[in-house]
Protein backbone atom coordinates (compact mmCIF):
# COMPACT_ATOMS: atom_id res chain seq x y z
CA UNK A 1 0.00 0.00 0.00
CA UNK A 2 2.96 2.32 0.56
CA UNK A 3 3.92 1.40 -3.01
CA UNK A 4 0.49 2.54 -4.17
CA UNK A 5 0.98 5.77 -2.29
CA UNK A 6 4.40 6.29 -3.78
CA UNK A 7 3.25 5.99 -7.38
CA UNK A 8 0.34 8.41 -6.99
CA UNK A 9 1.10 11.62 -8.94
CA UNK A 10 0.02 13.65 -5.90
CA UNK A 11 2.81 12.14 -3.81
CA UNK A 12 5.26 12.09 -6.68
CA UNK A 13 4.87 15.83 -7.08
CA UNK A 14 5.61 16.22 -3.38
CA UNK A 15 8.74 14.13 -3.89
CA UNK A 16 9.69 16.19 -6.94
CA UNK A 17 9.45 19.38 -4.91
CA UNK A 18 11.44 17.83 -2.09
CA UNK A 19 14.18 16.62 -4.42
CA UNK A 20 14.33 19.93 -6.29
CA UNK A 21 14.81 21.88 -3.07
CA UNK A 22 17.29 19.33 -1.73
CA UNK A 23 19.32 19.80 -4.93
CA UNK A 24 19.12 23.57 -4.29
CA UNK A 25 17.18 24.14 -7.48
CA UNK A 26 15.78 27.62 -7.95
CA UNK A 27 12.33 26.16 -8.60
CA UNK A 28 9.72 28.00 -6.56
CA UNK A 29 5.98 28.43 -6.60
CA UNK A 30 4.99 32.09 -6.36
CA UNK A 31 3.65 32.84 -2.89
CA UNK A 32 0.43 34.38 -4.22
CA UNK A 33 -0.28 31.25 -6.27
CA UNK A 34 0.41 28.92 -3.32
CA UNK A 35 -1.99 30.92 -1.15
CA UNK A 36 -4.59 30.91 -3.91
CA UNK A 37 -4.26 27.13 -4.17
CA UNK A 38 -4.70 26.68 -0.44
CA UNK A 39 -7.84 28.84 -0.51
CA UNK A 40 -9.14 26.84 -3.46
CA UNK A 41 -8.42 23.50 -1.75
CA UNK A 42 -10.09 24.57 1.49
CA UNK A 43 -13.13 25.88 -0.40
CA UNK A 44 -13.33 22.68 -2.42
CA UNK A 45 -13.20 20.34 0.58
CA UNK A 46 -15.65 22.52 2.47
CA UNK A 47 -18.10 22.57 -0.42
CA UNK A 48 -17.86 18.84 -1.07
CA UNK A 49 -18.30 18.04 2.61
CA UNK A 50 -21.31 20.33 2.83
CA UNK A 51 -22.93 18.83 -0.26
CA UNK A 52 -22.43 15.32 1.13
CA UNK A 53 -23.96 16.24 4.48
CA UNK A 54 -26.87 17.91 2.65
CA UNK A 55 -27.35 14.60 0.84
CA UNK A 56 -26.96 12.27 3.83
CA UNK A 57 -28.53 14.49 6.48
CA UNK A 58 -27.13 14.50 10.02
CA UNK A 59 -27.26 10.78 10.87
CA UNK A 60 -26.11 9.08 14.06
CA UNK A 61 -22.86 8.18 12.33
CA UNK A 62 -22.21 11.79 11.40
CA UNK A 63 -22.91 12.86 14.96
CA UNK A 64 -20.60 10.17 16.35
CA UNK A 65 -17.78 11.22 14.04
CA UNK A 66 -18.27 14.84 14.93
CA UNK A 67 -18.24 14.11 18.65
CA UNK A 68 -15.18 11.87 18.37
CA UNK A 69 -13.41 14.57 16.37
CA UNK A 70 -14.27 17.27 18.86
CA UNK A 71 -13.17 15.18 21.81
CA UNK A 72 -9.90 14.20 20.15
CA UNK A 73 -9.27 17.74 19.16
CA UNK A 74 -9.60 19.01 22.71
CA UNK A 75 -7.78 16.12 24.36
CA UNK A 76 -4.87 15.33 22.08
CA UNK A 77 -2.98 18.54 22.72
CA UNK A 78 -3.14 17.72 26.40
CA UNK A 79 -1.94 14.17 25.83
CA UNK A 80 0.84 15.18 23.54
CA UNK A 81 1.48 18.45 25.33
CA UNK A 82 4.73 19.08 23.51
CA UNK A 83 3.46 19.39 20.00
CA UNK A 84 0.62 21.40 18.65
CA UNK A 85 -2.14 19.61 16.84
CA UNK A 86 -2.09 19.64 13.06
CA UNK A 87 -4.64 19.02 10.29
CA UNK A 88 -5.68 20.34 6.96
CA UNK A 89 -3.65 19.55 3.91
CA UNK A 90 -2.83 16.06 5.07
CA UNK A 91 -6.52 15.32 5.26
CA UNK A 92 -7.01 16.28 1.65
CA UNK A 93 -4.10 14.16 0.51
CA UNK A 94 -5.25 11.27 2.66
CA UNK A 95 -8.69 11.44 1.12
CA UNK A 96 -7.20 11.30 -2.36
CA UNK A 97 -4.92 8.40 -1.54
CA UNK A 98 -7.54 6.40 0.33
CA UNK A 99 -10.11 6.99 -2.41
CA UNK A 100 -7.54 5.84 -4.94
CA UNK A 101 -7.37 2.62 -2.96
CA UNK A 102 -11.14 2.19 -2.92
CA UNK A 103 -11.26 3.41 0.67
CA UNK A 104 -13.08 6.75 0.36
CA UNK A 105 -13.94 8.16 3.77
CA UNK A 106 -17.50 9.35 4.30
CA UNK A 107 -18.11 12.85 2.96
CA UNK A 108 -19.04 14.21 6.36
CA UNK A 109 -15.45 13.70 7.54
CA UNK A 110 -14.71 17.10 6.09
CA UNK A 111 -17.12 18.55 8.60
CA UNK A 112 -15.17 16.75 11.28
CA UNK A 113 -12.02 18.37 9.94
CA UNK A 114 -13.59 21.80 10.25
CA UNK A 115 -14.87 20.96 13.73
CA UNK A 116 -11.44 19.80 14.87
CA UNK A 117 -9.49 22.73 13.51
CA UNK A 118 -10.81 25.26 15.97
CA UNK A 119 -10.53 23.50 19.34
CA UNK A 120 -7.10 22.22 18.35
CA UNK A 121 -5.84 25.74 17.90
CA UNK A 122 -7.42 26.78 21.17
CA UNK A 123 -6.05 23.86 23.18
CA UNK A 124 -2.64 24.45 21.67
CA UNK A 125 -2.74 28.08 22.61
CA UNK A 126 -3.87 27.34 26.17
CA UNK A 127 -1.08 24.85 26.67
CA UNK A 128 1.50 27.17 25.17
CA UNK A 129 0.33 29.97 27.45
CA UNK A 130 0.94 27.99 30.59
CA UNK A 131 4.67 28.28 30.02
CA UNK A 132 4.39 31.96 29.31
CA UNK A 133 3.00 33.40 32.51
CA UNK A 134 4.74 36.74 32.65
CA UNK A 135 3.86 38.37 29.38
CA UNK A 136 1.94 41.53 28.88
CA UNK A 137 0.08 39.83 26.03
CA UNK A 138 -1.30 37.14 28.28
CA UNK A 139 -4.54 38.98 28.84
CA UNK A 140 -5.39 39.49 25.18
CA UNK A 141 -7.69 36.66 24.20
CA UNK A 142 -6.80 34.70 21.07
CA UNK A 143 -10.37 33.43 20.64
CA UNK A 144 -11.24 36.02 18.11
CA UNK A 145 -8.14 35.33 16.02
CA UNK A 146 -8.77 31.60 16.17
CA UNK A 147 -12.41 31.69 15.20
CA UNK A 148 -11.86 34.18 12.39
CA UNK A 149 -8.67 32.51 11.18
CA UNK A 150 -8.67 32.45 7.38
CA UNK A 151 -8.63 28.64 7.12
CA UNK A 152 -11.41 28.17 9.64
CA UNK A 153 -13.53 30.81 7.90
CA UNK A 154 -13.14 29.40 4.42
CA UNK A 155 -13.57 25.79 5.56
CA UNK A 156 -16.63 26.38 7.73
CA UNK A 157 -18.03 28.96 5.32
CA UNK A 158 -17.83 26.79 2.24
CA UNK A 159 -19.10 23.80 4.23
CA UNK A 160 -22.23 25.80 5.04
CA UNK A 161 -22.47 26.97 1.42
CA UNK A 162 -22.28 23.32 0.37
CA UNK A 163 -25.15 22.40 2.71
CA UNK A 164 -27.29 25.33 1.53
CA UNK A 165 -26.54 24.79 -2.17
CA UNK A 166 -26.88 21.00 -2.15
CA UNK A 167 -26.05 18.83 -5.16
CA UNK A 168 -28.12 20.98 -7.51
CA UNK A 169 -26.53 24.23 -6.52
CA UNK A 170 -23.10 22.61 -6.59
CA UNK A 171 -23.50 21.22 -10.13
CA UNK A 172 -22.54 24.40 -12.04
CA UNK A 173 -19.39 24.95 -9.97
CA UNK A 174 -18.46 21.29 -9.82
CA UNK A 175 -16.08 21.45 -12.82
CA UNK A 176 -13.81 23.83 -10.95
CA UNK A 177 -14.13 22.54 -7.42
CA UNK A 178 -14.36 18.81 -8.05
CA UNK A 179 -12.90 17.90 -11.44
CA UNK A 180 -9.89 20.19 -11.15
CA UNK A 181 -9.22 19.27 -7.55
CA UNK A 182 -6.55 16.56 -7.81
CA UNK A 183 -4.54 18.45 -10.37
CA UNK A 184 -4.33 21.50 -8.13
CA UNK A 185 -3.44 19.23 -5.23
CA UNK A 186 -0.44 18.01 -7.27
CA UNK A 187 0.88 21.53 -7.75
CA UNK A 188 0.19 22.37 -4.12
CA UNK A 189 2.13 19.36 -2.93
CA UNK A 190 4.95 20.29 -5.29
CA UNK A 191 5.14 23.51 -3.33
CA UNK A 192 4.86 21.70 0.02
CA UNK A 193 7.76 19.48 -1.04
CA UNK A 194 9.88 22.51 -1.84
CA UNK A 195 8.97 24.12 1.47
CA UNK A 196 9.60 20.96 3.49
CA UNK A 197 13.08 20.42 2.10
CA UNK A 198 14.03 24.10 2.38
CA UNK A 199 12.81 24.18 5.98
CA UNK A 200 14.99 21.19 6.79
CA UNK A 201 18.04 22.62 5.06
CA UNK A 202 17.70 26.07 6.62
CA UNK A 203 16.85 24.87 10.09
CA UNK A 204 19.76 25.14 12.46
CA UNK A 205 18.14 24.10 15.71
CA UNK A 206 16.75 20.76 14.55
CA UNK A 207 18.17 17.69 16.27
CA UNK A 208 17.44 13.97 16.40
CA UNK A 209 15.27 14.30 19.49
CA UNK A 210 13.04 16.88 17.86
CA UNK A 211 12.82 14.87 14.66
CA UNK A 212 11.74 11.73 16.50
CA UNK A 213 9.22 13.76 18.50
CA UNK A 214 7.85 15.07 15.24
CA UNK A 215 7.26 11.49 14.13
CA UNK A 216 6.38 9.67 17.35
CA UNK A 217 3.75 12.08 18.58
CA UNK A 218 1.76 12.06 15.33
CA UNK A 219 1.98 8.26 15.30
CA UNK A 220 0.62 8.09 18.83
CA UNK A 221 -2.12 10.59 18.15
CA UNK A 222 -3.02 8.86 14.93
CA UNK A 223 -3.37 5.52 16.71
CA UNK A 224 -5.62 7.10 19.35
CA UNK A 225 -7.69 8.75 16.63
CA UNK A 226 -8.09 5.51 14.68
CA UNK A 227 -9.09 3.58 17.81
CA UNK A 228 -11.65 6.16 18.89
CA UNK A 229 -13.00 6.35 15.33
CA UNK A 230 -13.42 2.56 15.31
CA UNK A 231 -14.99 2.57 18.79
CA UNK A 232 -17.66 5.13 17.86
CA UNK A 233 -18.56 2.92 14.92
CA UNK A 234 -17.05 4.70 11.92
CA UNK A 235 -16.33 2.66 8.80
CA UNK A 236 -12.69 1.69 8.17
CA UNK A 237 -11.89 4.57 5.85
CA UNK A 238 -13.47 7.18 8.11
CA UNK A 239 -11.70 5.79 11.18
CA UNK A 240 -8.40 5.90 9.30
CA UNK A 241 -9.19 9.45 8.28
CA UNK A 242 -9.89 10.41 11.88
CA UNK A 243 -6.52 8.87 12.72
CA UNK A 244 -4.83 10.89 10.02
CA UNK A 245 -6.54 14.07 11.19
CA UNK A 246 -5.39 13.37 14.75
CA UNK A 247 -1.86 12.81 13.46
CA UNK A 248 -1.66 15.91 11.31
CA UNK A 249 -0.89 19.56 11.72
CA UNK A 250 -3.00 22.35 10.46
CA UNK A 251 -0.06 23.44 8.45
CA UNK A 252 -2.14 26.34 7.29
CA UNK A 253 -4.12 27.62 10.23
CA UNK A 254 -2.20 27.03 13.40
CA UNK A 255 1.17 28.70 12.82
CA UNK A 256 -0.17 32.12 11.89
CA UNK A 257 -2.56 32.12 14.85
CA UNK A 258 0.29 31.06 17.14
CA UNK A 259 2.55 33.80 15.82
CA UNK A 260 -0.08 36.35 16.69
CA UNK A 261 -1.02 34.95 20.06
CA UNK A 262 2.48 34.20 21.23
CA UNK A 263 4.76 36.76 19.67
CA UNK A 264 7.67 35.53 21.75
CA UNK A 265 7.64 32.03 20.33
CA UNK A 266 9.96 31.62 17.35
CA UNK A 267 7.88 29.97 14.62
CA UNK A 268 11.02 28.68 12.94
CA UNK A 269 11.56 25.47 14.85
CA UNK A 270 7.86 24.63 15.03
CA UNK A 271 7.45 25.16 11.31
CA UNK A 272 10.56 23.12 10.55
CA UNK A 273 9.21 20.18 12.52
CA UNK A 274 5.70 20.52 11.22
CA UNK A 275 6.38 21.22 7.54
CA UNK A 276 9.77 19.54 7.28
CA UNK A 277 9.21 16.31 9.21
CA UNK A 278 5.63 15.58 10.27
CA UNK A 279 4.01 16.54 7.00
CA UNK A 280 6.27 14.45 4.72
CA UNK A 281 6.05 11.54 7.17
CA UNK A 282 2.27 11.68 7.30
CA UNK A 283 1.91 12.04 3.55
CA UNK A 284 4.26 9.22 2.64
CA UNK A 285 3.85 6.75 5.52
CA UNK A 286 1.14 7.95 7.91
CA UNK A 287 -1.76 7.58 5.53
CA UNK A 288 -0.86 3.97 4.73
CA UNK A 289 -0.12 3.15 8.36
CA UNK A 290 -3.44 4.36 9.73
CA UNK A 291 -5.36 2.78 6.87
CA UNK A 292 -3.70 -0.56 7.66
CA UNK A 293 -4.28 -0.06 11.38
CA UNK A 294 -7.94 0.83 10.88
CA UNK A 295 -8.40 -2.27 8.73
CA UNK A 296 -6.69 -4.43 11.34
CA UNK A 297 -8.82 -3.24 14.25
CA UNK A 298 -11.97 -2.42 12.19
Amino acid at each position, binding site marked *: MIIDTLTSPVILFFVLGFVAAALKSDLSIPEAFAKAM*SIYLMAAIGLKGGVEVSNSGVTAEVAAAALAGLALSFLLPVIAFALLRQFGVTFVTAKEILTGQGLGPAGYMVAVLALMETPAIISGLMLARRGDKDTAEKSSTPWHEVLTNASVMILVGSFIIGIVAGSDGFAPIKPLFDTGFRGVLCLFLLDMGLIAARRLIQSRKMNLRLVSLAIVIPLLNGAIGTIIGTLVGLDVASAATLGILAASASYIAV*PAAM*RLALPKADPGIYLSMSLGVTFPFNIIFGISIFAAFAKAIG
Partner: protein
Amino acid sequence: MIQTVSRKRIEILVDTPLVPRVVAQLKAVDISGWSVIHVDSGGGRAGAWQDDDVTGASAKTIVLAIASEAKTSGLIEAIAPLLDSYGMLLTIGDVQVVRGERF
Protein backbone atom coordinates in the same frame (compact mmCIF):
# COMPACT_ATOMS: atom_id res chain seq x y z
CA MET B 1 12.53 77.96 -2.45
CA ILE B 2 10.35 75.30 -0.93
CA GLN B 3 10.98 74.82 2.76
CA THR B 4 11.72 71.35 4.11
CA VAL B 5 11.79 70.18 7.72
CA SER B 6 13.66 67.34 9.42
CA ARG B 7 11.76 64.25 10.36
CA LYS B 8 12.69 60.70 11.38
CA ARG B 9 12.30 57.78 8.99
CA ILE B 10 11.44 54.72 11.09
CA GLU B 11 11.81 51.27 9.60
CA ILE B 12 10.55 48.29 11.57
CA LEU B 13 11.19 44.80 10.20
CA VAL B 14 8.65 42.45 11.74
CA ASP B 15 6.85 39.15 11.16
CA THR B 16 3.76 39.89 9.08
CA PRO B 17 1.25 38.49 11.60
CA LEU B 18 2.53 41.01 14.16
CA VAL B 19 1.99 44.12 12.00
CA PRO B 20 -1.27 45.04 13.78
CA ARG B 21 0.67 45.09 17.07
CA VAL B 22 3.28 47.42 15.62
CA VAL B 23 0.61 49.69 14.17
CA ALA B 24 -1.08 49.80 17.57
CA GLN B 25 2.22 50.93 19.10
CA LEU B 26 2.58 53.64 16.45
CA LYS B 27 -0.90 54.92 17.15
CA ALA B 28 -0.26 54.82 20.89
CA VAL B 29 2.49 57.41 20.46
CA ASP B 30 0.34 59.40 18.05
CA ILE B 31 2.16 58.48 14.82
CA SER B 32 -0.80 58.40 12.52
CA GLY B 33 0.66 57.28 9.22
CA TRP B 34 2.50 54.16 8.13
CA SER B 35 3.21 52.06 5.06
CA VAL B 36 3.85 48.33 4.89
CA ILE B 37 6.33 46.78 2.45
CA HIS B 38 6.64 43.07 1.80
CA VAL B 39 10.04 41.41 2.39
CA ASP B 40 10.73 38.48 0.05
CA SER B 41 13.50 36.72 1.89
CA GLY B 42 16.37 37.29 4.23
CA GLY B 43 18.74 35.84 6.73
CA GLY B 44 20.04 36.46 10.20
CA ARG B 45 21.14 34.69 13.33
CA ALA B 46 18.27 32.23 12.99
CA GLY B 47 19.20 31.25 9.45
CA ALA B 48 17.84 32.09 6.04
CA TRP B 49 14.16 32.18 5.07
CA GLN B 50 11.90 32.89 2.09
CA ASP B 51 8.31 33.99 2.00
CA ASP B 52 7.31 30.61 0.62
CA ASP B 53 5.69 29.47 3.84
CA VAL B 54 2.01 28.90 3.02
CA THR B 55 1.08 29.43 6.65
CA GLY B 56 2.32 33.02 6.50
CA ALA B 57 3.66 32.62 10.02
CA SER B 58 7.25 33.42 9.10
CA ALA B 59 6.60 36.03 6.40
CA LYS B 60 8.21 39.36 7.17
CA THR B 61 7.39 42.94 6.30
CA ILE B 62 8.83 46.39 6.85
CA VAL B 63 6.62 48.95 8.51
CA LEU B 64 7.77 52.39 7.39
CA ALA B 65 6.73 55.53 9.27
CA ILE B 66 7.76 59.16 9.02
CA ALA B 67 7.46 60.98 12.32
CA SER B 68 8.77 63.90 14.34
CA GLU B 69 11.75 63.40 16.63
CA ALA B 70 9.58 63.63 19.74
CA LYS B 71 7.14 60.98 18.62
CA THR B 72 10.03 58.79 17.47
CA SER B 73 11.58 58.93 20.94
CA GLY B 74 8.26 57.93 22.40
CA LEU B 75 8.05 55.01 20.01
CA ILE B 76 11.56 53.79 20.86
CA GLU B 77 10.71 53.80 24.58
CA ALA B 78 7.49 51.91 23.94
CA ILE B 79 8.77 49.40 21.46
CA ALA B 80 12.33 48.66 22.65
CA PRO B 81 11.25 46.06 25.23
CA LEU B 82 9.50 44.10 22.49
CA LEU B 83 12.30 44.20 19.93
CA ASP B 84 14.05 41.08 21.07
CA SER B 85 11.12 38.96 22.14
CA TYR B 86 9.19 39.81 18.97
CA GLY B 87 12.28 39.33 16.80
CA MET B 88 11.92 42.83 15.37
CA LEU B 89 14.55 45.10 13.85
CA LEU B 90 14.19 48.88 14.31
CA THR B 91 16.21 51.51 12.47
CA ILE B 92 15.82 55.28 12.52
CA GLY B 93 17.21 57.61 9.88
CA ASP B 94 17.01 61.33 9.13
CA VAL B 95 15.00 62.67 6.23
CA GLN B 96 13.78 66.01 4.96
CA VAL B 97 10.12 66.33 4.14
CA VAL B 98 8.10 69.03 2.44
CA ARG B 99 5.23 70.37 4.51
CA GLY B 100 6.02 68.33 7.57
CA GLU B 101 3.20 69.66 9.73
CA ARG B 102 1.22 66.50 9.21
CA PHE B 103 3.81 64.18 10.76
